[in-house]
């Protein structure tokens, strides 16, 4: 196996193994972060509902 093939094999192995790790890490934490995001956005929608005139102010 020449140098190029060693490099490409390593690239493929790191790509596959790294992607498995990333998929697990992100999937386990991202849904909790999504919940936090929606809570923060709910605050925005509440503010907009209480002060709809802000949405009509031209800037």
């Amino acid at each position, binding site marked *: 196996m*020449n140098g*190029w*093939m060693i*490099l*490409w094999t390593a*690239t*493929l192995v*790191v*790509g*596959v193994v*790294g*992607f*498995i*790790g*990333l*998929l697990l*890490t*992100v*999937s386990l*934490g*991202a*849904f909790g*972060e*999504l919940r*936090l*995001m*929606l809570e*923060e*956005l*709910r605050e*925005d*929608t*509440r*503010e*907009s*509902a209480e002060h709809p005139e*802000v*949405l*009509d*102010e*031209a*800037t």
Partner: protein
Amino acid sequence: MSLYDTNFTGWDWGIVVVYLAASIVIGLWANRYVGNLSDYLLAGRTLRIRLALATMTGTELGLVTVMYSAELGFLQQYASLYLALYEAAFLLIIGLSGFVVYRLRQTAVLTIPEFYERRYSRGVRVVGGSMMVISGVLNMGLFLKAGAQFLTAISGLQDPLYLKLIMTGLLLLVLFYTVLGGMVSVVITDLVQFVVLGIGMLVVTWFVVSHIGFDGFQDVVTVHDGYVDPTSGVNPTKPNVPAAGIGGGTMLQMAVVLFSALMLWPAGASRTLAVKSSEVAQQLYLYSTIPFLARRALPVLWGIGAFAFFKMNPELLSAFQSEVAASANGEGTGISSLSATPLFLAKIIPTGILGLVTAGMVAAFMSTHDSYLLCWSGVVTQDIVAPLFGPLSQRQRIFSTRISIIVIGAMLLVWGLWYETKANLWEYMATTGTVYLAGVLPVVVGGLYWKRSATAGAYVALLGGVTGVLAMGPAVNWMNLKLASGQVSFHIENWHMVLTTFTISSLGFVVVSLLFPQQTVPSSHQPKETT
């Protein structure tokens, strides 16, 4: 076994339809979380690192990425993996240094052209926004066709009419939930799509490796004389076709294009601007190294598998080559080298699992389209319509963005239906991307790091990017014909024109900035981070 044999059945269609229906429900549901313009365009800048990673990966790991990477794997085998290494290395550099992305997030702008106005002038913002939209729509022009070719090839549908119907249907679906929920819809669907797509990619990789085997992948080099060394301009599978090779010039071109795109491609930059802080923006780039490596490497592996598969089945290879040749003459079923990998996957992945994989690929298709549509439409509203016809209220801006999404969607449909490219898909995308990237690179980098950057230089750099259209296939062919008729032996390649465009824009920016210095530096260009 015939070319269009597939394991795709009614069960698989059912799985795909259920998945698509779920996306519509998410779009409707997300609409309730849009309170103001920032929510609609940037999900209220509430993204934390994992969610940002999921949505960044979902956006940048589109079906079009899968298709062009697999196509490169099929055409250039292992040598095409240099692009995966480039992306990983560049992201590592950006992630460790924070180059551009840290300071850009500090400015707290909603879009890159908004930065132009703060640093240069309103006119630069309008010109820069227009260039961004033109380049972006051109760049997206073949997304629909690539997606439809995947679906038709994997499901065995041969009628070109299906291609058009599928393109239209998928686009309408994406338009529906993006128009309704904006970035909130996009983030939620991206997360689901990230999981579905991620599992799908690993499943496909498993079946490809199982079917071809390690010996089969070795045979690509030892028996079938596959392409391994990208620095060589000669592709051993097509030694008489110069355009089939890579070589040092193309590698240099791709290094410049990719480095610029990773920092400043608007859809990626919108994630930089949507995260909670500059630190998260920098982390996002560092951690994106792995998914960006995978988004190239895995589909290339499938493409190499398709190459090995067709070499092992010469009768199929012959049928495939005949179909591609007939399609190029407008007589076949419309397939091209893009279809090689999905045709291969349709034969090796069993029924049921094929439906899940297809749902994953449809997820990839939608997660890219929704982000891109929202991104360009946001630029149309914020950086073209509002500066020219404003002031506008937040409600009017959201309405304008929704209209822009629909208009751009219609343009994509028309462009995708009639434009035929002779280049491979990645080359087309790199070329159209140059129109925007060549200008934005000096204007943003200079604006952030060089005090003498000036408005006149910014105009020259942005407009200099237009020369990038000369790198498109028809323009290069025309110039070569002119050279040949003038008895000039020099042959222009695509990469000559791409690098020339970057040089014109960057040099023009520096020289004109020095010749026509800024009289007053806008006070608002100083970094002022907000969350």
